[in-house]
């Protein structure tokens, strides 16, 4: 919604300040998206009166003018055909700057000096007319600043109006809010040139049929059209609008069409009431029937589009065919044209739901439907018709034929809401004096009557958002001003909701994985179909984003490829996020996962190490181990068909580490990754073991393992056979190649023996080691490597 500061000022009868008004509107809830000064660039332009026009001696199309712009008369060379002595025009003296930035200089044109410029509307940004210079109808003395002589300097507010406030889609509604704060009443300004006598007020019809100036009006779709008022104006002269009307519309960015259309638009933006003007001569009958469209009916709307209608839509028809879509757009056939002399004015209240249904079925939205579907004032319909008639008579002439009609078969009862003083304090935290509450609500158009401990508040029809006590409390807070409420911290009770365990686990995972050198990534959970059980979005933005992910790794792999495209070889990312699985007839199953991807150098290159090794699968396993330790109690890792598989306590595969397929450039390192479901937590808080006081004894053994024998299996045997003296063991070397048989390898373990509380004897160690070696040979035929 665009609003003009000057327009608002007129409604409130006070000169409003632009910056202050912006702040006030903001604090009233009408967000100001932009504040645009209009015609501020015309400050140098003055009124110039042409005293004398002579032919330019050296050019056929130029004239030599003497211009009074205050002070000494100026000699000006002019190229406009319409320049005439005794007339006044905008004049840019030497040194003046035009809105577009052009600086006017003393110039010599074909041998004659020119000391300024007479300007066209286009040069001043006042219109598209470039047929000559702009003739001014002003009594202001020559030399007066144009901005002081003409009411064109203005400020345009671009407002963001929330959907609950259709009343703010008009200057009157905005002014009413401002007035409640400024303690000023809103009064519609007198229309220049309006007839002294007010037009007759619309007469209420009996039932759903009436007559306006001899034209029968029938409302058949009573639920779609709650109220229909109309008037017939005859002898109207369609032509250009007067300057004040054009300026007003221009100030809010609306284009001037002709006086009739401009008048209806003016009413729309002034009071929020859409008005439609039909060319009476084009209406068959002539008659007006408000009804549902018939199956197969079609209509060419004002925008020139041929539209198919159906019975879900409310239309305005003449005696035979639909001639407009109710509250959305008129028809091209009955549009007012230059030849129009008789006009039927429509001022109606269409039901918001039905209007919305109609305009959605039409697949369009207009200024009119935007207001009807949010709800306009159904009480003021006849007044607004009267205002439209007055305006039309003022700008287009003519007279009202007969008495306007008001078809309102089923009047909408007023809404009364009860408001308790105590409840205001309960919600707002501050006692508001009864008098203040009454003043605020009255200023907003409510009728307030005290009743015991509460107020009976009849809300204005222009405010469909006010239906409950809480709605009125918000109004009180809004007009009192949110900034006038205190913000001191008051005592509170601790809540009963525990911290979500998954959030704690996620935080521990983030610590663990960043410690391993992985950056946290966040990818979009929407992607292409990856799994038959992926839930599908019915209205995706594209096929590539039509499914919810079932795994995190594919998204992370795309991130790696993105880095590769940017020539980044070292990529280490992890993500904690949700994966989804479709379930019949209920919400998709969701699972929190953690995944990581690693490629490139294992550590930052260092001068002491000419070739840094690349990350490999064992680095991915390290990430997986760290994640499992934090996230998943009782899980085990074991080799799978590809890479490593995580099984939860129930034996279900819940994660993996593997080499990953990717679109890998030749220079990139292998890509490895891991992913695992996040449970409710991993290792519990440790119970510390006493630190050993006795010395340990170490032994190294190298065993030759045949192909297919896993180190972990050998270790299990070594550990159980060696007994409790074996504190720990780990492989520290692996060797393949000559002289070992093909396929076999030598794995060297370091074994650490210790007896708590005493020093081990050599022979005990020796015995334990021998038991272990004997057992592993018996089980797997594995022997020590001959040295």
């Amino acid at each position, binding site marked *: 919604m665009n609003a003009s500061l000057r327009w608002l000022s007129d409604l409130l009868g006070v000169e409003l300040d632009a910056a202050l008004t912006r702040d006030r509107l903001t604090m009233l809830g009408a967000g100001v998206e932009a504040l645009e000064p209009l015609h501020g660039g015309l400050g140098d332009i003055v009124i110039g009166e042409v005293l004398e026009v002579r032919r330019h001696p050296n050019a056929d199309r130029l004239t030599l003018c003497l211009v009074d712009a205050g002070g000494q008369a100026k000699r000006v060379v002019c190229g406009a055909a319409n320049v005439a002595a005794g007339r006044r025009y905008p004049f840019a003296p030497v040194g003046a700057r035009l809105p577009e930035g052009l600086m006017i200089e003393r110039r010599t044109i074909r041998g004659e000096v020119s000391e300024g410029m007479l300007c066209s509307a286009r040069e001043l940004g006042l219109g598209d007319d470039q047929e000559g210079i702009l003739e001014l109808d002003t009594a202001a003395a020559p030399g007066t600043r144009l901005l002081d002589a003409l009411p064109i300097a203005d400020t345009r507010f671009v407002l963001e109006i929330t959907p609950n406030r259709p009343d703010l889609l008009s200057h009157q509604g905005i002014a009413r809010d401002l007035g409640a704060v400024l303690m000023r009443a809103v009064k519609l300004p007198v229309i220049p040139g309006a007839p002294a006598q007010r037009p007759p007020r619309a007469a209420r019809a009996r039932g759903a049929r009436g007559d306006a100036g001899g034209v029968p009006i029938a409302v058949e779709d009573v639920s779609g059209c709650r109220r229909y008022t109309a008037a017939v104006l005859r002898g109207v002269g369609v032509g250009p609008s007067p300057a004040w009307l054009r300026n007003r519309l221009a100030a809010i960015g609306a284009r001037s069409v002709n006086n009739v259309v401009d008048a209806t638009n003016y009413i729309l933006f002034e009071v929020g009431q859409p008005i439609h003007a039909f060319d009476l001569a084009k209406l068959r009958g002539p008659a007006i029937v408000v009804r549902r469209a018939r199956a197969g009916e079609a209509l060419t709307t004002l925008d020139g589009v041929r539209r198919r209608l159906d019975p879900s839509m409310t239309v305005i028809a003449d005696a035979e065919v639909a001639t407009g879509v109710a509250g959305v757009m008129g028809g091209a056939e009955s549009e007012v044209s230059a030849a129009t002399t008789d006009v039927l004015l429509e001022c109606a209240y269409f039901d918001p739901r039905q209007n919305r249904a109609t305009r959605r079925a039409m697949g369009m939205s207009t200024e009119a439907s935007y207001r009807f579907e949010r709800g306009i004032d159904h009480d003021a319909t006849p007044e607004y018709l009267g205002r439209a008639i007055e305006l039309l008579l003022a700008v287009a002439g003519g007279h009202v034929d007969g008495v306007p009609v008001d078809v309102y078969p089923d009047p909408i009862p007023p809404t009364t809401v009860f408001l308790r003083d105590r409840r205001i304090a309960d919600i707002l935290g501050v006692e508001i004096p009864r008098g203040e509450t009454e003043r605020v609500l009255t200023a907003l158009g409510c009728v307030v009557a005290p009743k015991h401990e509460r107020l009976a508040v009849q809300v204005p029809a222009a405010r469909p958002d006010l239906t409950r006590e809480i709605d009125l409390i918000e109004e009180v807070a809004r007009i009192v001003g949110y900034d006038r409420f205190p913000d001191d911290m008051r005592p509170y009770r601790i809540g009963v909701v525990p911290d979500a365990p998954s959030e704690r686990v996620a935080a521990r995972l983030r610590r663990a994985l960043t410690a*391993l050198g992985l*950056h946290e990534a966040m990818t979009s959970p*929407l992607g292409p179909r990856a799994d038959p059980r992926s839930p599908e979005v019915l209205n995706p933005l594209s096929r590539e984003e039509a499914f919810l992910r079932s795994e995190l790794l594919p998204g992370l792999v795309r991130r790696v490829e993105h880095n590769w495209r940017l020539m980044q070889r070292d990529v280490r990312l*992890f993500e904690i996020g949700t994966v989804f699985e479709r379930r019949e007839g209920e919400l998709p199953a*969701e699972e929190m996962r953690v995944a990581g991807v690693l490629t490139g150098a294992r550590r930052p290159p260092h001068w002491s190490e000419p070739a840094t090794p690349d990350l490999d699968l064992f680095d991915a396993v390290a990430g997986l181990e760290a994640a499992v330790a934090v996230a998943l109690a009782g899980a085990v890792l074991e080799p799978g068909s590809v890479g490593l598989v995580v099984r939860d306590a129930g034996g279900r595969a819940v994660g993996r580490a593997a080499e990953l397929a990717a679109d890998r450039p030749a220079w990139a390192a292998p890509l490895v990754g891991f992913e695992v479901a996040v449970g409710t937590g991993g290792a519990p808080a440790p119970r510390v073991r006493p630190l050993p006081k006795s010395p340990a004894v170490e032994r190294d053994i190298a065993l030759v393992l045949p192909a297919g024998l896993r180190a972990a299996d050998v270790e299990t045997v070594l550990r159980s056979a060696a007994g409790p003296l074996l504190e720990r063991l780990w492989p520290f070397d692996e060797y393949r190649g000559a002289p070992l048989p093909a396929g076999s390898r030598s794995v060297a373990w370091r074994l650490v023996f210790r007896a708590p509380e005493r020093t081990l004897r050599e022979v005990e160690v020796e015995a334990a080691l021998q038991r272990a070696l004997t057992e592993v040979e018996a089980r797997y035929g594995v022997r020590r490597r001959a040295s």
Partner: protein
Amino acid sequence: MSGPSAEQLAALAALRAEAEARVRAARGRDALQQLRTDYLGRKAGRLTAILKGLPALDPDARRAVGEAANAAKAAIETLLEAAERALAPAGSEAPRPDLTMPARRQWRGALHPVTLVVDEVCAIFGELGFTRYVGPEAETERNNFTALNFPPEHPSLEMHDTFYLGEGMLLRTHTSPLQIRVMEAYRPPIRVTMPGMCYRRDPFDPSHAPAFSQVEALAVDEGITFVDLKASLTYFARRFFGPSVRVRFRPSFFPFTEPSADMEVECLICHGTGCPACKGSGWMEILGAGMVDPNVFEAVGVDPERYTGWAFGMGPHRMAMLRYGVPDIRVLFEGDMRFHDQFVDGG
């Protein structure tokens, strides 16, 4: 085995450990030569002395001690040789290291900037007694709209362009359905922050993403008022943006709160004088908030005459962009290592 032999074995182990430690600590060829003499020297080497004394032991002890001593000798010999190889060529003195050369660094990971914001928001509200509560990203229309007082077919639905899953299910357009879930799971007093991923049907552009995070907070109890809302959110703003930041609340509209408010802080770029970032207003919108609408309480079976509450929702993606100067929201989804490297320190 006799006592003396066990003692000798222990002494031998200690000697071996001491020698290994000293070899590892030794710097320079001379030091290594000295150690070789000390332990393995033909005349006065300490290990040599033990080996020389072997014949005096009884056969069992001789075998045990002998094996251990020979193993120790081999180990020390190996270590010494390795240390000597590692030294610079013979004759040159070990140079002093140039400590202006880069350190031996490890990769360090960084948290996502959105995580940094979410964690800080939740931590600040944690100071006010708020716990963290989470819930599903796929939701019912009832939890996402109806129970939150969105009238069906109302224009306010157009504020949320929704991804639908069919059968009354959708991807949540905000974290507010968690208000419904937490109030159905717990009776007041409730004080929770609720972070999570949300979805709207906006294609990726510099300021939109089809998936984005939100943090919601909800406080419900007897006697909670608009003053508590202002106090809590002002506290948050001062902790998050700095103690002197100016804050204002202006009326707004959300179907599930009334009165509703937008909280704005003075523009972080121009500090209130007006600039393109704040569209000349000097203020920046930070979050939407309001008193829980009585219809929401009705929907979850909480008595609105007894309980009142406030709620807010904000966008950590936008907060992260503001705080860290990220010009384009898409950067937050790209996983560019050079972007995330910048969050290793100070994150």
